[in-house]
């Protein structure tokens, strides 16, 4: 099947990918530092601990993520490392996750807006304990072995807002020992992406791999709603199923006349509908 896609649409899809790619690159960089720290010739160089311990690893993670979280123009409002259960000698369940000053969840109104650590419950006997390995941001990368974009979703126990989370596995000797990742507010993403998708001149909607709307030029297409177009779910299947969304680059024509254009390896896709009749 040949699909004629507006060159402008391809260009916009690439620009969306290039807005998010630096976040991917940054997370991959954190992963590389942690993998080198946890095994190999320079293992323990930063933490000073030959065996992986939360107490010595946390300052390393904090140092990695704090620069980005304190940068005012950052897309990211939370970031860190989450350990596989049992990996760290001194903490069977462990989240080393930090929130930027723009995030005031759980702080009193008078709290200073600075970098804060997420207070997570890591005692499995506690009532509030949650097995994070059942959650999408853990489950999917653990299954596919690769990066995953979760959301948009309401993250009511961490950022308390409408969020996208990106996570990627950290490995030692081929085993996933945890993951690194970031949270981003959808409102912030929309602010950055909307001017880009407006340039197409078509009614244009950015969706995730489940067809959930991230941003749209069409006021009737609400962020968070599922875009219900004939054939869309099927056309999105490769973005959901492929272990590496980077392999899906071809645009697809939907039965109703709309066109689906994957945005690089982000697992997001643009849906261009027919231009409105003037």
């Amino acid at each position, binding site marked *: 099947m040949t699909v004629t896609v507006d060159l402008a649409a391809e260009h916009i899809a690439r620009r969306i990918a290039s807005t998010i790619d630096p976040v991917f690159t940054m997370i991959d960089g954190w992963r590389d530092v942690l993998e080198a720290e946890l095994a190999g010739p320079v293992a323990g160089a930063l933490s000073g601990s030959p065996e992986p311990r939360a107490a010595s690893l946390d300052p390393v993670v904090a140092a990695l993520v704090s620069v980005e979280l304190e940068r005012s123009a950052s897309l990211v409002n939370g970031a860190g490392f989450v350990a596989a259960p049992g990996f760290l000698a001194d903490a069977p369940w462990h989240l080393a996750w930090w929130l930027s000053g723009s995030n005031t969840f759980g702080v009193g109104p008078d709290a200073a807006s600075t970098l804060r650590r997420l207070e997570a419950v890591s005692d499995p006997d506690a009532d509030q304990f949650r097995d*994070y390995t059942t*959650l999408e941001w853990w489950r999917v990368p653990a299954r596919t072995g690769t990066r995953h974009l979760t959301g948009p979703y309401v993250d*009511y*126990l961490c950022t308390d807002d409408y969020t996208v989370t990106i996570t990627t596995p950290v490995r030692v000797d081929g085993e996933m020992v945890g993951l690194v990742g970031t949270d981003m507010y959808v409102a912030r993403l929309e602010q950055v992406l909307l001017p880009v998708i407006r340039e197409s001149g078509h009614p244009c909607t950015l969706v995730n791999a*489940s067809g959930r709307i991230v941003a749209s030029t069409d006021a009737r297409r609400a962020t968070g709603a599922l875009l219900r177009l004939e054939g869309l779910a099927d056309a999105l299947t490769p973005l959901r199923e492929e272990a590496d969304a980077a392999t899906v680059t071809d645009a697809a024509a939907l039965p109703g006349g709309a066109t689906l254009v994957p945005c690089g390896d982000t697992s997001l896709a643009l849906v261009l509908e027919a231009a409105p009749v003037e």
Partner: protein
Amino acid sequence: MPQATGRADATRAVVFSPLDGAGRAELVEQRLTDAIVAGVLRDGERLPSESELARSLGVAVVTAREALVALRDKGLVLTRRGRDGGSFVTHDRDTSMRMIDERLRAVSRIELRDLSLHYSAIAGMAAEVAADRASDDDLASLVEIDARADLATPGGARRAVGRFQLEIAAVSQSPRLVHEELRLQAEAGPLLWLGLREEDSRDRSHRARLDVIQAIRDVQPEHARRATTEHIASAVEWLIDEKVRLETARHPTEGGRP
């Protein structure tokens, strides 16, 4: 990091979320009382320290202390000194029943019906939007919450309702509805779902949940809303009946039910 601190028991997490308004010591006391009485905070469980409580609830340390003293006086909390000291929940079944009965006596029918309307507005709308916006994964997690519900005990049934309603709000993709759902659960949950101490109510509540899940599966927003609001209405009707029973028991000479 999403949900890691315990989406599973957010009904419990809200107990320690910030409070606003006047009479804060009473509000702290009321919220902790409700949580203990409802079994959200369990017998023998250690409460956060005065300073931790003050921080998480957004009140002064002296306010938190005042509330703890009141809870101690009510016999809901025990304070032990020493290295392993602190305030511990003492969940006495009889005390709990008496407390919640008193709360129900004190609240007027008008307030109960108003609460019913307010909560229906929030939860009904959340269900309506959720039916349109639920992905297959969302539906699976709702089914999972229902499957894990412990319907053998009032506390288990109430936690199941709390989790389910919260998940519905999350599926609606609205941070405001989620926020309002959590606030209402903290403020009114223990009273509203008091009926779950009866097995009949627990069965009804379970059936309502299955009905909502089916409506979401079928993408029937109207049906999801109706099933949700009718569930709330029946919980409030139970409360009003119960209130009549309590009032009749206390003042038998002033005339009871017809």
